[in-house]
């Protein structure tokens, strides 16, 4: 038994609770599956002819191959926001107090919630790729490529979850966290999640090029449609990791601040 083992067991137990309470509350997970899948279907049906006709569109086998990565990122974004508002509900409802008044590791309070988010994101990525493959999509880079997709999804889940938890700790209000959701959604549309950046121009293109989400989606997409290299994979993983470090770090500071001020 190492000194760290209680914190690890606590993380696992809290993550399990996070997963159970998500699964048992359909409004917590249905949107994160429904919206991305609906958008993916609509786009595939509407823009199925786009590849090869629209200048700048990369060569792909089908639009579905192109769309699946955006759907995964969108699902993770919705799921991560839900994790943030669940954390805020814990603060509002008193579960957070129960944790703080117990010898639970302060780190586990965060890692438990993020662990749940990451696990759910990985399952979601599996599901989306699985569903898309039923309709003919293929991950060109094979198992290794699939692994890259899963890792990026998990890290992005930690990043979004970290941001959600940060907002929860600063506002203490589930409503406030949910209120940020439209902003996250806008961030998604100002990225290359649904259409290639090459087809965009002007200021819109500038924003898309600055948006980190674009790089995550493109790194995942390269694994699906082909053209992925170690470089593209590392860029995607690196950016996701960087985002996660920033938001999880911020949530750690916010937790310390809340515990210190405790008002």
């Amino acid at each position, binding site marked *: 038994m190492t000194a760290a083992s*209680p914190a690890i*067991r*606590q993380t696992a*137990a*809290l993550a*399990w*609770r996070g997963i*159970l*309470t998500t699964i*048992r*509350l359909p409004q917590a997970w249905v949107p994160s599956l429904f919206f991305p899948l609906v958008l993916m279907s609509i786009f595939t049906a509407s823009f199925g002819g786009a590849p090869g006709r629209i200048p700048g569109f990369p060569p792909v086998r089908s639009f579905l191959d192109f769309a699946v990565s955006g759907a995964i990122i969108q699902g993770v974004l919705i799921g991560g926001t839900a994790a943030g508002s669940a954390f805020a509900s814990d603060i509002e*409802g*008193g*579960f*957070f*107090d*129960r*944790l*703080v*008044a*117990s*010898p*639970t590791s302060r780190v586990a309070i965060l890692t438990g919630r993020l662990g749940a988010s990451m696990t759910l994101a990985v399952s979601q990525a599996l599901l989306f790729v699985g569903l898309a493959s039923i309709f003919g999509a293929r991950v060109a880079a094979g198992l290794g490529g699939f692994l890259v997709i899963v890792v990026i999804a998990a890290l992005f889940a930690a990043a979004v979850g970290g941001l959600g938890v940060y907002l929860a700790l600063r506002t203490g209000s589930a409503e406030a966290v949910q209120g940020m959701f439209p902003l996250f959604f806008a961030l998604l549309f100002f990225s290359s999640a649904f259409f290639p950046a090459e087809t965009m121009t002007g200021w819109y293109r500038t924003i898309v090029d600055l948006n980190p989400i674009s790089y995550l989606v493109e790194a995942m997409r390269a694994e699906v449609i082909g053209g992925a290299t170690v470089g593209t994979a590392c860029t995607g993983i690196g950016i996701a990791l960087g985002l996660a470090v920033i938001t999880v770090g911020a949530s750690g500071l916010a937790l310390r601040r809340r515990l*210190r*001020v*405790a*008002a």
Partner: protein
Amino acid sequence: MSEPAVETRDLVREYRGGIRAVDGVSLTVDTGGIFGFLGPNGAGKSTMVRMLTTLLRPTSGDARVAGFDVMTNPDAVRRSIGVALQDAAIDPYMTGRELLRLQAVLHGLKRAQGRARSDELLGRVGLETAADRRVGTYSGGMRRRLDLALSLVHEPTVLFLDEPTTGLDPMSRVTLWDEVRRLNTEHGTTVFLTTQYLEEADQMADRVAIIDGGRIVADGTPRALKAEVGHPLLAVTAADASTPDDVARVLARFGEMVPGAHVGGAAVRLPGGSAAMADAVRALDEAGVRFAEIDLSEPSLDDVFLIRTGRHLEGADTAEGGPATDA
């Protein structure tokens, strides 16, 4: 002999805007008893509990719980205390058993230990049959009992119950009282109980402190506090040919009359305590005064509160089901 379960000195908590929710509280709660912390809404009860359970930092002063300083050694405090806060913080989507097992892991119990302990506690609070149902389906009383079980997973030495029966029906309230009493007598757990109900403090606590406006206004055993306030009131109803005046003439020999306190008879405060009642009855008999009913009533904790603050405790917040938030 042993360290007090709770000891505070000049404890102060000031909120933004300079409001002092707790304003210089010095308390000593001995190990092994049930301590009742009584006060109206907003008196500072919850703020006090939050400081003692390491959830809130005191603005100034000292507090030790189970022998550990809440500021410098909060982890040791957390290992020693059980906490059931107002508005039981319980996931509606988890089952009672799942929550108990989770709590056991959070307190560092081994898996097998946690399972055994969960089963034992479910039995003790009478939730075996509901153990695998989601908490969302529980009644208010069941939730409080689960909350109590959750706070006991690690066998704490000091148990904090913040308004454990607020909003419960009388039956559930009595069940919970029994469980807390049993815990105290059989397991020797010190109980620090906050309440806004006089009856609860009177029934449960062997020591009571009354807080109002962030300050302790009275502190002692319920019996001593009530004795301080006044003597028991003896009320006698006249019967047959005897008049209330006849009764009053005899009773006046035993203490201070309370005019108008008893219709159809007379009432007197007995400085000699309840023991003087027998003498009074004998004197009535010897004087040939006929009487029907005799009623001896002890002063209540409300009388204590009234004398110390000039207000009644109950009725100060008659808002049934109103927000039970303490500043």
